[in-house]
């Protein structure tokens, strides 16, 4: 008998020695459990009962100023909190007056706009032409350090020409200008912005839009209330729902769990597998809509990430293009109305065409042959960065592996991902781009191939074609120039377009919500069902 007791003591001794680490291990357990159960524990503040629409998404804009992030979540906030000079009717594509009541082209490089009277910012300041001029001139200064240069660098300067009018001078003719004035160029309050600076503005943003931001909790949530003094006559009208809250929940499963338990009312980017299952839940509505977002692999063509980067060789890039079965990915992984793309743009955008653009069929044998020809018969190791839809990136890695290219995945937050690509610190980027919902190829191909920060190829011929296309006033010339550029990009395989991204939206059945193809949820138009 004494031996047994002794054994017990011995064991307890070991346990005692390990207590510290047991605590560590259980902490890991708690962390895992927390991840899984986050949904169950969430406070139930959402829903029709308290007139609060809580929407959740994965990423947080690095800065809430609409010019200082290029993330979709930022675009959503921009469209719900700020107004633009013009409004583009998503149904007809026509431009309607918004903060500008009228506009005229004096000549191809001069645009006159009349600014609406009686509009006030959320802080009570009246909107004046000075606000417009300040916004556009400020964002063009290098000190502003905006991250959406591609959206504004067609402007040269903006001047106030009267108590209600401004004049925008363009650097060169830019036929797509109105598209940009109706999208990614919200008007900021000059006096307030100058007073609080960018940091202050990011913490307490002020706009003229249908919702007013009341609190910003970094990494967690942005809370908004309806702007009850929203100017009458706006094409989008006053918001219907009283309170709006943007919740940042990076983990997709937690978002879904939150939705199913009523912690949030609206989520999107639900993987098709799960969307199909969610449809069975009668308390939820699930809709799927194609968006303008297109995924593409961006290659470190100039070999900045590695001196002897295999990607400098066009045959290697073509081999990668042949190695990936995009059609199988569209049919089995993405689904929901996704379309395979062969040109680096969204096919419905003005100027985007696949005519004459070389397409790369799935052909692993050819891919291997091309690699061999390029001197990589045994393949090579490379890094691939991605920031969303990890499954797609892993599928790409799987296809590359099958032809001998051993890619390692770096899964990053968007800002880190974008900066790594811009700085030439990663070899392959799994990019996606929603064009800021601008229906013009300059907002896609232009951003990534016109020689800007995002351009990893910097091919002078492509840059010249894109510039010619952007600045021509003749639609036929524009189309021809863009087609030239797209052809060369594809022939050189500077990037590999993948497919368009449908988005699966899932939201409470109490909500009436219409998804638009431009990937901008218009929460101001959403209503509760009676």
């Amino acid at each position, binding site marked *: 008998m*004494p*031996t*047994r007791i*002794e*054994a017990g*003591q*011995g*064991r307890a*001794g*070991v346990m*005692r*020695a*390990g207590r*510290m*680490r047991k*605590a*560590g*291990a259980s*902490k*890991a*357990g708690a*962390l*895992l459990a927390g*991840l*899984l159960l986050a949904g169950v524990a969430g406070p139930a503040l959402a829903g029709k009962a308290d007139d609060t629409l809580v929407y959740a998404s994965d990423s947080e804009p690095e800065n809430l100023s609409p010019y200082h992030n290029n993330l979709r979540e930022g675009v959503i906030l921009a469209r719900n909190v700020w107004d633009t000079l013009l409004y583009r009717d998503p149904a007809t594509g026509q431009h309607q007056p918004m903060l500008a009541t009228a506009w005229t082209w004096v000549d191809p490089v001069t645009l006159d706009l009349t600014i609406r009277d009686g509009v006030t910012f959320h802080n009570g300041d009246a909107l004046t032409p000075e606000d417009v001029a300040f916004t556009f001139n400020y964002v063009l200064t290098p000190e502003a350090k905006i991250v959406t240069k591609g959206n504004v660098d067609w402007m040269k300067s903006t001047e106030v020409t009267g108590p209600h009018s401004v004049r925008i001078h363009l650097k060169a003719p830019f036929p797509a200008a109105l598209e940009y004035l109706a999208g990614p160029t919200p008007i900021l309050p000059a006096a307030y912005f100058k007073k609080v600076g960018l940091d202050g503005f990011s913490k307490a943003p002020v706009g003229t839009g249908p919702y007013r931001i009341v609190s910003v909790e970094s990494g967690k949530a942005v809370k908004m209330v309806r702007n009850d003094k929203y100017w009458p006559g706006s094409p989008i009208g006053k918001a219907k729902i009283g309170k709006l809250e943007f919740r940042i929940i990076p983990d*997709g*499963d937690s978002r*879904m769990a939150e939705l199913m338990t009523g912690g949030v009312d609206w989520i999107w980017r639900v*993987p098709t*597998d*799960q969307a199909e*299952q969610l449809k069975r839940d009668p308390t939820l509505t699930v809709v799927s809509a194609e968006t303008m977002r297109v995924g593409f692999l961006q290659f470190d063509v100039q070999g900045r990430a590695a001196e002897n980067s295999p990607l400098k060789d066009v045959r290697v890039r073509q081999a990668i293009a042949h190695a990936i*079965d995009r059609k*199988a*990915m569209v*049919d*089995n*992984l993405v689904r929901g109305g996704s379309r395979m793309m062969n040109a680096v743009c969204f096919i419905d955008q003005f100027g985007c065409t696949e005519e004459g653009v070389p397409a790369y069929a799935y052909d692993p044998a050819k891919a291997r042959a091309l690699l061999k020809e390029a001197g990589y018969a045994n393949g090579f190791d490379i890094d691939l960065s991605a920031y969303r839809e990890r*499954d797609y990136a*892993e*599928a790409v*890695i*799987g*296809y590359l*592996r*099958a032809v001998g290219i051993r890619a*390692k*995945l*770096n*899964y990053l937050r968007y800002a880190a991902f974008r900066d790594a690509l811009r700085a030439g610190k990663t070899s392959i980027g799994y990019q996606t781009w929603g064009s800021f919902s601008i229906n013009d190829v300059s907002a896609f191909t232009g951003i990534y191939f016109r020689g800007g920060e995002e351009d990893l190829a910097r091919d002078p011929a492509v840059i010249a074609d894109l510039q010619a296309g952007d600045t021509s006033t003749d639609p036929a010339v524009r189309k021809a120039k863009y087609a030239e550029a797209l052809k060369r990009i594809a022939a050189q395989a500077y990037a590999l377009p993948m497919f368009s991204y449908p988005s699966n939206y899932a939201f409470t059945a109490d909500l009436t919500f219409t998804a638009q193809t431009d990937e901008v949820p218009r929460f101001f138009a959403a209503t509760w069902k009676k």
Partner: protein
Amino acid sequence: MTIRPASPLAQAPASAPAETVLPPARSPAAIALRRGLSHGGFLIGAGIVGFIVLVALAAPLIAPHDPYAQDVSRRLIPPVWHAKGSVEHLLGTDKLGRDYLSRLIYGSQISLLIGLSAALISGAIGTTLGVLAGYYGGRVDAVVSYVVTTRLAMPVVLVALAMASLVGGSLKVVVLVLGFLLWDRFAVVTRAATRQVRSQDFVAAAKASGFGPVRILAQEILPNILNALIVVATLEMAHAILLEAALSFLGLGVQPPLPSWGLMIAEGKQYMLFQPWVITIPGVALLMLVLGINLLGDGVRDITAPEGRH
């Protein structure tokens, strides 16, 4: 020369009446074997671990498919016992259409590799420190105890997470981080065991014969604290395997497409609600391995302890 410490932490009372009931004529190995065969936990643990080790070693021979070969048109096929399952994929396929059984088989290599290497690295560090502290005592002991206390003050998971996110997760990083973090139990146990052994007569005899400290440590002390070491090593192995799974689950451990069980659990998480087998299968495998290692370690401890407990 077969005096062994009574227990890893060795606050043992000297009384060991069980010795008297053992048949006196048998060799120590025969005694250990006899005890092992009648020790249920040991047998189960040895069975599980032996099976998984065999599977890991024979992975290229027994895996029905290439664990990396994906076919997105055959994704998320349920296991064979499911109505929609197919014999071709006994455990079904994952989200990219890779054979789940093959990934599980190759995943055992990674789990065992990490468990063994982490236990080896941490065992080497911890044992060296512990033996030195226990044998020399005094200042050496004070310094080692200070280092151990410092190490104990660091939360393992947090440090491992921070390291992995700084350096970037990979198999090598995980092994090194865990190896350099899990040595404290080795140090504590070997220190106590060494303290006990060093005052034994045979150590004094060795000293009197003029042997140097290296020889005494290697030939007199180490063999006599070995069974305590084995027990700690199994515990640490299981611990390292669990930590690797946790790190991989959080995306900072082994990187895809390597088939780590922790990573498979992480990837299965999004299917938890509707395709629960995706997360259950690697979860059960991990549970079995850790359970097996712990049972084995417990059994070894019981068997090799001189009092003959079962």
